């Protein structure tokens, strides 16, 4: 094998083009990591909200909670499903109302966006969410029946005038002012972008005769399947799906972003591989004499091939690592997306270990693709001619 020192020296000897190649791969991989993080973090905020053992009940035909309408007697029929998790009073059913309100985005302007408003019985809503809803210190829960609301931890990043103490006007006729009495945190789920209040108070405010959705719990996946069959069967006759499936459907509008980012990365990856090939071809051409010398010293063709491939891979690894670091500049920044309910959901951008690993692998792939042909040429150098020309 050709000693590592030789590679390091030759990379340093042409430091400008080495640097340019590294920078190039870094930008491509940085863009890739960023795009991947945008898509994955967006899907994850929904997935994190998703519990395979919670079932979302909607009216037949409804695709999301915002357009679903369940009457009390329809919800009562759920009590006949034996698989549901129960307490002393019977199955734990959380009746919820979901409505949209308009809010001015944090960055201002005179255009408005949709905010999701959810009416709940806080104790029960928290039960079906496995106690994940925490009221942050300094605030308190809304009192049932009062014109009070609590806002998710991310709402502050999304909408103006949605901080504790502020009044938010809600209702079909936008008729009632609700005071924000607390902030709640569900650990980064989509609920953190919602506004919550008392379900019966919201029924009045929004003039609803029924509810939007009901959430129930089952002990395991098998029970979930049976319960869904029963809920959709003739005796209950409602639409039922696990929360995981529900959020996956709401997240499908992220797919175009994913498809486009893949397309962009493929095109850029090819460009980067070509540029690496360019650098390596030049480096091989400039080092024909050195290669011939190495060959006369007894290094075999395969060692030469390996030597140049290693050089390319080292470039790519450095560039890839730099690119991942570059994308980390956006780590933890608040991003926005529009969920399938047409409401804005805020999420934190995260460059996860799998993303970093994929990016490094793609970087190495680019390096390999760009190096193979030049390295092949290097290993084929005609020793005698090359030595004569030195």
């Amino acid at each position, binding site marked *: 094998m050709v000693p590592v020192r030789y590679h390091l020296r030759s990379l340093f000897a042409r430091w400008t*083009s080495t640097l340019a190649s590294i920078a190039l791969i870094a930008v491509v991989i940085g863009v890739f990591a960023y795009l991947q993080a945008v898509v994955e973090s967006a899907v994850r905020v929904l997935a994190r909200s998703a519990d395979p053992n919670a079932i979302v009940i909607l009216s037949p035909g409804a695709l999301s909670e915002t*357009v679903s309408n369940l009457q009390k007697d329809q919800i009562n029929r759920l009590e006949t499903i034996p698989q549901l998790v129960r307490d002393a009073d019977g199955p734990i059913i959380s009746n919820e109302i979901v409505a949209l309100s308009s809010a001015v985005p944090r960055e201002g302007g005179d*255009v408005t966006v949709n905010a999701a408003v959810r009416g709940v019985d806080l104790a029960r809503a928290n039960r079906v969410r496995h106690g994940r809803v925490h009221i942050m210190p300094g605030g308190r829960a809304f009192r049932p029946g009062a014109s009070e609301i609590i806002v998710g931890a991310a709402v502050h990043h999304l909408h103006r005038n949605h901080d504790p103490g502020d009044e938010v006007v809600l209702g079909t006729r936008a008729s009632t002012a609700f005071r924000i009495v607390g902030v709640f945190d569900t650990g980064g789920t989509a609920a953190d972008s919602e506004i919550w209040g008392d379900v019966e108070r919201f029924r009045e405010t929004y003039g609803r005769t029924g509810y939007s959705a009901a959430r129930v719990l089952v002990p395991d996946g098998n029970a979930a399947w049976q319960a869904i069959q029963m809920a959709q069967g003739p005796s209950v006759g409602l639409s039922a799906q696990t929360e995981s499936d529900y959020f996956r459907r709401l997240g499908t509008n992220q797919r*175009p972003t994913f*498809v*486009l980012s893949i397309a962009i990365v493929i095109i850029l990856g090819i460009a980067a591989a070509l540029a690496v*090939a360019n650098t390596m071809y*030049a480096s091989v051409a400039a080092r024909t004499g050195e290669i011939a010398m190495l060959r006369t010293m007894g290094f075999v063709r395969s060692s030469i091939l390996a030597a140049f491939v290693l050089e390319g891979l080292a470039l790519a690894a450095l560039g890839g690592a730099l690119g991942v670091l570059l994308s980390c500049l956006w780590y933890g920044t608040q991003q*926005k997306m*529009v969920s399938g309910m047409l409401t804005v959901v805020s999420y934190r951008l995260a460059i996860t270990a799998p993303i970093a690993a994929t990016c490094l692998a793609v970087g190495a792939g680019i390096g390999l693709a760009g190096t193979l042909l030049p390295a092949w040429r290097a290993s084929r150098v005609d020793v005698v001619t090359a030595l004569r020309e030195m």
Partner: protein
Amino acid sequence: MTTLTIAFRSLARRRLRTVLTLLSIALPMLVYTGARSIVDDVRRFIAEVDRNGRVVVHQRFGYTTTLPQRLREDILALDHRGSVRAVCRTTWFGGHVEDAQVAFPSMAVDRDTFPIVYDEYGFSPDDLRRLAAERRAAVVGRPLAARMNWKIGDVIVLVGGLPPYPRMEFIVAAIPSRLETSWLYVGLDYYDEVYREKAGEPVGVNTFWLKCTSAEARRWALTEIDRHFANSEHETRTEMESTFLLSFARTEGAWVDLIWTVGQLIVLVSVAAAFNTLSQSIRERTRDLAVLRALGFSRARIMGMVLLEGLSFGLLGGLLGVMPVYLVSAVVSPVLPGSSAPLHISGWTSVVGIATGLAVGALAAVLPAASASRLKVAAALGRVV
């Protein structure tokens, strides 16, 4: 021998390298032009839409809350000076084809005024006749009709997306030539009839679109309608069409911003690629350059030569990256995933793309050109000879 000839000769010297470099400039330029076109499409659409002279009236706190249908007459009754040519009520229908994976947006609209308020869609006289005669008429955007293989006269069955989720039959009545979105419109009267039957109340209206007769008429509409309905049971908010659309662009805007950020970063890729090639080529030609200097070429001329080489790389790379997408978009109008309108790459965007290519070439050539011009002739000649 002119500077230009020398520049081109050196490009031709190492063909493989030139081709590789051109491609590694062209591909990022392709992505850049695509990204710019997406962003431009959105911005231009919003900038130009107000030429259609429309304003929208919706509930004061947002379009998701509905207003009663009779407001169409109330608004027309306010208009004493003929400011409003027509009012078209639109409400979300959200229909989908049963068991189909395809999703498209759909609205219920007034059959009589829709073609007047949206006259830019290019309804033919036949379209108008069918639309007026058929209660079950559906107006389908061209890309959607092509994708679903729907033709005039086809019967389609849609299930509404809002309670009571009516299952309704429609007849494709018009595929207007300039309706280049994947939207579908059905008759409000027919939807209302089915809705009333199932829900026991009339369907509410999300938005009222007013076609105004003049700029002054629009100013009147923007102030007087809201003033009239203030403190009534149904308070309104009247907006320019662009303002209204901007609220969607704002929510979808994250995506546009993302594309734009990425598009700009991508230019760096081609700068790095071109820089690499140029500095290599200069290094290899140290001797040639030294000879030229010895022959009496000035430092400035050497510098100009290298810059020119960079510019030709940029120009060719830009052309190579931009022209194919420009031609393709002009011929087939591709629809990108997640968008409902075809991507349009304008001549201007193409020019900007090529100019960006030039800038890339210039930027990449600055350092190599500087180092070439600083060449110490005696040392360079001595080193090689």
